[in-house]
């Protein structure tokens, strides 16, 4: 017990000395800290941003149908005949098949693409639409206004705005216009008895792959897509984008490591003298190494914690202005959204590995060199 207490006291004393000695060389250590902080900040922002986007995608896809069946024609997506729906409904385990009607509409007025969808709601009124808040903003529309669209046979269709989706659903509905199936047919000159794709519900989620395999074998030109596949694709796209940016940022990480190495190697005359004096009054090499270890720990922890806090603020309060363009994608009607803060131990560990570990590795040899100088040589220097 006494030994443990003594060891803790030794560490505390050396830590106290370390803090005092760091403060004595403010300029050098602050410049190192600033660089370190910047690197942690960049990597942490990236990490937080990508994880938050992944979470966002997962939340959106939560409401997506379990399986979507498309039809392919010459390698392109084609309309699905109604007979496909009844054929799939016969497969055991399928609870419901819902033909969906949706498409894109280019608005020449503001250069934006809208997503037009036919509503399932039987109470929907003809020539009345529910629109996303992105469209309302872009075209300056309020409830009761008229939104003119030009149909594919060049006839104007006037849609009265029934509701505007709340901006909380922006990520899904910013560019959405919901109309009745009849209006949809009129607008796009859409052939009747066909659908854009089919949303299939399966009672037991474990049966989804089997049902998908059956659909693929019964209807050879169909293309079943599972929600889990979409989720997976999103996850790996975001991971890939994040990883790509990380690879680009490695150059800055590398230059930081060189900078840290250089700082640690270039001991000032004063520092040499200090180590010389310490050793001549009885400090051992292991004590000086411990001093250097604590020095690195103090700098790393300060930079790491500050960098992470700054990155949190940058991503979740300012919506990551530095990365957003590169990672989010862009469009005329871009949803405004505030990312939901997600920070967990896993991300912090990854960050720790990407920043603190390389720093520690880069400084271990210079620290050892400093710790093993002979006292007389150091003081004479």
């Amino acid at each position, binding site marked *: 017990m006494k030994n443990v207490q003594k060891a803790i006291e030794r560490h505390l004393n050396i830590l106290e000395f370390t803090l005092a000695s760091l403060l004595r060389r403010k300029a050098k250590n602050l410049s190192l800290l600033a660089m370190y902080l910047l690197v942690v900040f960049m990597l942490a922002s*990236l*990490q937080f941003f*990508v994880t938050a986007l992944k979470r966002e995608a997962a939340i959106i896809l939560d409401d997506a149908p379990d399986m979507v069946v498309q039809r*392919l024609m010459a*390698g392109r997506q084609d309309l699905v005949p109604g007979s496909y729906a009844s054929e799939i409904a016969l497969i055991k385990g399928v609870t419901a098949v819902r033909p969906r009607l949706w498409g894109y509409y280019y608005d020449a007025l503001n250069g934006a693409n809208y997503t037009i969808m036919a509503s399932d709601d039987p109470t929907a009124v003809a020539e009345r639409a529910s629109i996303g808040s992105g469209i309302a903003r872009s075209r300056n529309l309020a409830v009761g206004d008229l939104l003119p669209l030009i149909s594919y046979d060049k006839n104007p269709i006037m849609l009265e705005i029934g509701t505007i989706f709340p901006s909380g659903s922006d990520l899904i509905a910013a560019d959405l216009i919901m109309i009745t199936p009849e209006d949809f047919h009129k607008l796009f000159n859409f052939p009747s008895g066909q659908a854009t794709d089919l949303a299939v519900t399966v009672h037991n989620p474990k049966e989804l*792959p089997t049902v*998908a*395999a059956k*659909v*693929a*074998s019964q209807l*050879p*030109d*169909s*293309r*079943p*897509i599972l929600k*889990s*596949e*979409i*989720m*997976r*694709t999103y*996850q*790996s*796209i975001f*991971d*890939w984008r*994040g*990883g*790509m940016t*990380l*690879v680009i940022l490695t150059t800055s990480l590398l230059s930081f490591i060189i900078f840290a190495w250089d700082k640690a190697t270039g001991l000032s005359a004063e520092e040499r003298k200090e180590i010389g004096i310490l050793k001549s009054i009885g400090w051992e*090499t*292991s004590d000086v*190494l411990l001093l250097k*270890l604590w020095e690195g720990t103090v700098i790393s922890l300060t930079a790491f914690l500050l960098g992470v806090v700054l990155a949190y603020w940058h991503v979740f309060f300012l919506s990551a202005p530095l990365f957003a363009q590169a990672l989010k994608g862009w469009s005329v009607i871009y949803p405004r959204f505030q990312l939901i803060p997600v920070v967990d131990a*896993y991300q912090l*560990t*990854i960050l*720790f*590995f*990407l920043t603190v*570990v*390389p720093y*520690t*590795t880069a400084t*271990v*040899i210079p*620290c*050892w060199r400093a*710790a*093993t100088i002979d006292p007389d040589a150091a003081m004479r220097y």
Partner: protein
Amino acid sequence: MILHPAALALLLIALLVSGLGIYAGYYGVRILARWDPVSGSEEQLELERRTYLISTIMSYILSFELMSLFLFVYTADDLHTLFTGAMCAAGTLAVNPFGYPALLIKIVNFLLAGVWLIVNYADNKGYDYPLIKIKYELLNLLVPLLALECCLLFAYFAGIKPNIITSCCGSLFSRESVSLGGNLSSLPHLPMQMAFFSGMIITALSGLYYYLRGRACYLFSISATVTFLISTTSIISFICLYFYELPTHHCPFCLLQKEYYYVGYLLYATLFSGAVAGIGAGLLMPFRKIGSLLHIIPGIQRSLTLITLVCYLIFSLITVWKIVFSALKLG
């Protein structure tokens, strides 16, 4: 190749660790060839200084290895969503033939690095570096393994191809996909339970006997090592079943998940620390007669024994607690 940030972090660490290892190994070879404690030459002085550097590097390597071991398993677990049929880390690691070897060698390296630090600690206590040769021979064994670990990790992450949506129609479903289920082969639970508890009891008794009387250290060390092996097999065979409360799910990785309150970290940490200390105690045995270590090694061995006993006790208590209070009863 997968560009997941965690994969990049793991590869970076593996590169740094093997780089540091090779650097340390280079001086290890020089020390083995040139070490001469009676000489006062410049070279000997320089080598003596190097030993400080190598101990520091090794302690870093150990802590990096420990952290990256858990990060590796966690990442494997996190990546399972990328593969059809994979339920957890067990499936992700089976994606290509390098996953399990990489994990295995990571564990071996962690144990070896731990044992090395114990030998190093004892060596530093003696004024004439009596264990220097054995220490650096051990180091030379470890360095190639660190490099191998790095290569395996690269091969593993380079060979990962997520099953994402392709433009061809339903290709994922038209062929029979290989199952990546998490069912590892496991040994029958009843004999394993008996082996586990007898192993723990023998280790505890021999450990206590050694701690109090200072005899039968080899017996203790061997039983601690064997019990470590039995325990890892037992986790797969029956311990995890009580946590999952499911008689068919033999996965050693799901224990690390939130659903089980991260209990796996505690289980593995105690098991590995206990094993390192137990192996270390036995490994120091041949050197207890060396002059400068005569009064030092027995003390270290006693502390190591205590560490093993406490760690294994915690491990056993968690296991027994779960066996008693789990809703699952194995007949």
